Each structure stands twice: as C-alpha cells, then as structure tokens.
C-alpha cells in the first residue's frame, strides 16, 4: 500500500498543470464563502449543489444539515459551510474505501472488471489504470471483452501498444465470457499481477446484456479465487440523475465495488457521485481528468468539494 501511495504522489506532481485547470485555488472560492451565513447564501448553496448534479435528495440532506446548524447558531460564517461540506463528504468516503482492492500475495492476479454504459469512457479509463499500475512496476494484462462495438478491440490494442502491455482478444461478435475465460488462463500462465477486463458499453435497461455481464463475472470468479477483486463502474462526469439507476442496475448484475469518475476535466462537477454514495455504499476510487494515460487521480473529497464550488 505504501508503494501505491508514493506512486500516486508522483502522478499527482505530474498533474500539476491539469490541477490548475481542474481544481481552483481555495482562495478563489472566498468571495462566495466569505459572506455572512444567511438564508440567501443557503439558497445559493442549494442551487450550486443542484447545478453540480448532486440531485434533489442528497442536496436536501446537506442543506437541511446546514440550515439546522445555522438556526441553532452553531454556524454563522460562510466559510464554515465549506468546512461542513468537506467533513460530510469525507465521512461519506473514508480513505480505506477509496483504495484499490488487491489480491492477497500469492493468490494469483488481481482482476479488475471495468463496466459502464456506452460512451462513459471505459477504454480510456482502462488505459489510465494500466499506466498507473505500470508505473508501480506491475505486470498488466488486458482483456478485450467488448466484442460488440466496431473498432473497440482495435482501440484497446492501440492503447496497449502505446503502454507496452499485452491484450487477450477474441473474435468480433464472439462471446465476451469466452474471452474473459482465456484472459484469466493467460493471466495465470504469464504470472501477471493485474488483469483488467474491458467490457462492451451497455445500457442498464437491456436485460440480456446485463445478464451477459453477470456471466462474465461468474466465469472470472470461477477461474481465479476472489476475482474480480474490483468491479469498477465508469461514470461520465456529465451524467445526470440517471447514473444512480446505472449504479443500482449494474450492481445487480455484477456488484460494483467502486466508481471511476471520467471526464472531470470539463465543466461538469460530477456531483452525481454524492447522490450515488447517499443511496448506495459505492465509493469513488479514481477520477479521470484528461486524454492522456497519466490523467488519473485518486479521488479526493476535499478537492472534489472545492471543484464543485469553483466557477
């Protein structure tokens, strides 16, 4: 774990430039929070949370908490609100929840199953995970289980070439569970540390495709003990409230252990993860902040709150 952390801090340094764009300096938030706490500020705060896609339920919960503290006189200054929000969100995502689950030593490769709806950013996110693990000197193997979308396997292969890792693939239109099976065998035979499985984008409303996902998971679980150690749901940061349904439905087919919040480098705040955390037990593990494989960061509730209020 220590190794993992030091690697992450390295990645963080490399990201300094992105971070300037992504995470505003807290001082920039001052105009908003430097005011006296009053009903008007609370209303504005509510609008901000809603604009960040936090959703009506989770927003109400946070605002009710602030309003109660304001009424009882516990909170009087705007900046206390920021402290309050950070504390609440940190409590939502304890640090141990945010790290990657790794297979115990000697028990074979760690398997990461990557899922999500069409266009969420699965393949790019996989390239990022792959780069991160490679920087920790892990031997990574990729499984191209998106046998449906034209060009999907090729897309993963191009990334694998650039990152210097091997891809296990099958026939276009073939059974993705069979590819997953082959990939598990190959991962064991080649003594890979981590196997990352790319799956086809699927809408959570498509029963047969959700069952197919369940099948991939079962196949993997049978091949490698304790696998998949991590089942990540890649969410587009621009997602609205429907992402909550995605989290629920995907979890039914293959229990989701974490969210990879992709495309957080735009103007979207990704507040939907708050709604998801409030309704389920799914933590956010990583955020994607750009197009290059190095644009990955561990999820940090502090920065997340800051970014939510940056304009």
């Amino acid at each position, binding site marked *: 774990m220590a190794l993992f952390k030091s690697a992450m801090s390295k990645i963080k340094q490399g990201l300094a430039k992105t971070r300037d764009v992504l995470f505003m300096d807290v001082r920039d938030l001052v105009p908003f929070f430097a005011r006296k706490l009053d009903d008007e500020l609370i209303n504005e705060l509510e609008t901000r949370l809603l604009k960040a896609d936090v959703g009506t339920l989770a927003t109400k919960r946070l605002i009710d908490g602030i309003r109660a503290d304001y009424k009882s006189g516990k909170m009087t200054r705007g900046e206390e609100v920021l402290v309050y929000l950070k504390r609440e969100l940190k409590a939502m995502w304890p640090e141990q929840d945010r790290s990657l689950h790794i297979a115990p030593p000697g028990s074979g490769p760690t398997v990461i199953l990557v899922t999500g709806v069409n266009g969420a950013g699965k393949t790019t996110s996989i390239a990022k995970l792959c780069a991160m693990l490679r920087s920790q000197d892990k031997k990574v193997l990729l499984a191209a289980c998106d046998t449906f979308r034209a060009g999907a396997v090729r897309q993963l292969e191009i990334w694998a070439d650039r990152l210097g890792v091997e891809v296990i693939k099958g026939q276009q239109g073939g059974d993705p569970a069979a590819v997953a099976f082959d990939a598990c065998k190959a991962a064991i035979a080649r003594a890979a540390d981590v196997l990352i499985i790319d799956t086809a984008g699927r809408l959570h409303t498509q029963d047969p495709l959700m069952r197919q996902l369940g099948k991939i998971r079962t196949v993997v679980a049978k091949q490698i003990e304790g696998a998949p150690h991590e089942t990540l749901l890649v969410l587009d940061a621009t997602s*609205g409230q429907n992402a909550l349904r995605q989290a629920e439905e995907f979890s039914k087919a293959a229990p989701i252990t974490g969210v990879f919040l992709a495309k957080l480098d735009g103007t979207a705040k990704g507040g939907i993860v708050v709604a998801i955390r409030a309704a389920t037990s799914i933590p956010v593990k990583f955020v994607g902040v750009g197009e290059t494989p190095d644009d990955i960061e561990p999820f940090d509730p502090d920065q997340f709150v800051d970014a939510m209020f940056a304009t």
Partner: protein
Amino acid sequence: MFERLSDGFASVFRKLSGKGSISEGNVRDAMTDVRSALLDADVHVDVVEAFTQRVLEDAVGREVTKSLKPGEEMIGIVHDRLVELLGGDPAQSPEEALAPAPDGGIMQVSPGPTIVMMCGLQGSGKTTTCGKLAAHLKKRGRSVMLCAADLQRPAAVEQLHTVAEQVQRDSPGGAQVHFYGEPDKSAAYGKAVGVAVQVCQRALAEARKKGVDTLILDTAGRLHINAELMGELAQVNSALRPHQVFLVVDAMTGQDAVNFAKAFHEQIEVDGIILTKFDSDTRGGAAISVKHVTGAPIRFVGVGEKMEALEEFHAQRMAGRILGMGDVVSLVEKAREQVSDEEAAAIEAKMAKGEMSMDDFLAQLRTLRRMGPLKQLLGLLPGVGSALKDVHIDDKHLDRVEAIVHSMTPQERRRPGELNNSRRRRIATGSGAKQEEVGQLAKQFDVVSKMAKQMAGMNAAAKVKAVKEMGSSGMGSMFPGVQNLPGLSGKGSSHMVSLKSKFKKRKK
C-alpha cells in the same frame, strides 16, 4: 414521480374544495413537487425556476377549480407548457404530432451534396448516430458518404468504416453508402489538430465526384473548453460550410448540458440536436436545457444499438416522459407500425361477437411482442413506468403461452373453454407445460373474451376502466410474468383517459 405529482395537486385542490380560482399561495406547494420532478429529470436549475414561475402565472386566476379534476388540469397546464418549451404544439393530436417531417428531418440542397456535420462531447454517440443517419437516408433513397473526421480517438476511423459497411450491407433501401477516411492521419489525442479540415475537404471532392446526395462529417469528440480542438471545429465549419450542424447529446446528461451546448453553439451555430441513448430509463430533461440555450430544434432520438434505432423527435412524447406520465404517443406509434386499421377493426368486430379464438389471441400476442420487450411496452403506459422499476418481467413466459396454444388443435383453439382432462393432458405433454397451466390459460381466455364482448359497446373511458379492473382480476395473470401489476389497477392511469379525451376534444 407522476403519482407524486398527481397526489400533490390532488391534495391542494381537496383543500380548496371547489371554491374560488387558483391563487399563487395554494399552488405554490404543489409547484415544489413540479420543481423536484423537473430537477430529478435533469432539467437545468435556472430553466426549472423560470418554468415553474411561468406555470404559476399561467395557473393563477384560471378557474381550474371549477373543473371536475383540477389536479389533472394543473398537470395538463404543466404538460402543455413543457411541450411548448420543447418546441412542440400542445394542441396537436397524437396523429398530427406523429406525422413524419416531409424532408425526413434532414434538409436537402440541390445541387448536392448536402453537408451534415456532427459534433459533441466524447462518448455522446456521434459515430453510431452517423451510421443511423446513413441508414435513415438510405431508406429514403438518398446516397450517403460518411467521412471520418475523428483523428483523435484510437480506432475511430476503423469504427466508422465498419459502420458504413454494415449500413450498406444490412440496412433497407437502395441507395449507396460510401465511406471516406484516412486512417494513417490518426494520432494520439491532441496531436493531429487541424488535419481534419483537409480530410473533410478531400471527402467533399470525392463526394462530388461520386455524385453523393449527403456527406456526413463525423468529427472528434471534444470538450467545449478545449480551445484548440474547438478552433479546429470552427475551421472545418468555415472551410466546408455544412448545411446542417447537429449537436449530439447523451440523453443521460445532467446539469452541464447548458454549459457545453452554449459553448458549441457560440463557436459554430448549431442547427439541430440529436439525443442519444434514449433507450435507457433516463427522463432526459437535458433536452429542455439544450433546447433552451441553443434554440435549435431537437430532430432525432437514438433508441437502441441497431442502425435502424433512430426516431424523429416528438415534443409531446418527451414532455410526458419528463413528467413520468408514460408515453401513450409512442405506444400508439408502435402499435400502428404493426397493425393496420383494417386488422384492428376486424379484431374488434370479432371481439364484439364473442368469436375471438386462441389463434387471434396468438396473433395479437405476436404483434405485441414485435413491438418490443413487454417491460418496455408496459413502461410506456401512464403510471405504470415507475411501478415497474423492480418488477422482473421475463418475455420467456410468453414463449410458454405460445407453446401451449401451438399444441392445440384448430377446434380447441376456437373453443378453449371446452377442453376436457384428456385434452389438457395431451396439450400439456405437447407443450412441456403443466396441466394446470393449460387449464388456467383456457379459463382466463374465456373470462377475457367475455369481457371483450361486453367492452365492445363501451366508450373509451369505460373501456380503460374495464381494462383496469381486468388487471386486478384476470388479464394480468394471463401472462404469468406480469402478475399483480401495480400500475394497471392504480390511479396513475386515469390521466391517460383525460389526455386522450383532451386530444379528441381538440380534434373537433
């Protein structure tokens, strides 16, 4: 959601108990529910505030309370305002609203080629939508060239090439679908900026040479805050002068829709919007936000993985969906695709005489199944959608029903009520079902056909009422997978009646 809205309004008007007209104070609480409904549907906060304010002003002073169901009338106002906001005409009947655009939704210029440019964020579905538009045009006899102008995403060129071949090979229609791409020009993201302009120009020259009707440019997905790539898009725009620029928007997008739609619209004027991934269960409020900031009409919605899964946009349908009212318009359309008016009339006549046979039932069942998965269809019914959330409906149960009917002789199919034990046993063996299942089906068929006979003379409202009662007594259990369907006997569906009768009133 819709239930919550109806209940909210109903309780407000119960308090008023028929006196006076609506005042701001007494609907304000109910409007809070409308606000939440719209926010939960991902409509942008600012748009929601402006909208609820307008509806309030619209409602205040109206003598809605004199009507029998003021709550429904209020929802009617909300619905109509939403339709307007989405660019539709609330006074149109479903038939009028469904009339296809004469140009198939895509304007054509002469001499060709008509140039269509697709743009949007990463992962919104541009490449798939290009294929769908090509299939849409091919069906209308117009030749298409798909140009791969996405040199950023790995394998995007290959993907479009495959899609073009697929449409040319599998999609109905006689016209040719061409592909133009220069895969060797692709590079890592952000490395080949500006190259797309020349690729598009060469594609245009090629399209002219081949005499293609429509050239569709599949540009790379880009963030609206990436100045360099937005600049490239502007370059393509000024070099090619596309006749139509479509902004492709994921229907599951949240509040950020206003930001990127605005940025795209400012950089290159957007002429139309295409909503994708509409076959998810998203309410799609982003459509309103996008329409609001660009003013551009929403032209198409993508509703599935298949190349034919592209529909023209209908404001009424969208408004109903945002409010969670179900989608009667879509249901009517789907049914019409499968059943001609004559067929429908013939069946109704048979039902009236009590002559409906198991064969007719089987034919109807098959028609129903051609319309799509049962769960999806039931979800279109007002008030049923949300109730279905956790109900698992397996269409395989219908296979069993079909198998049972198939194991009957023609005579048995005509009079399933007269099955004796030995016949039941034979049918059960033949279809692999249990003997009780055969008996049950026969009995339920009997009940339903009797009801159908009675219903034949009723007006629309009475029919819906009868169907609802059937839901709790017999019809629901006819399909083993959908027993005790909550919505069918619930109060939510009453709105369908009022909507339908409203349409009727307006037609006169």
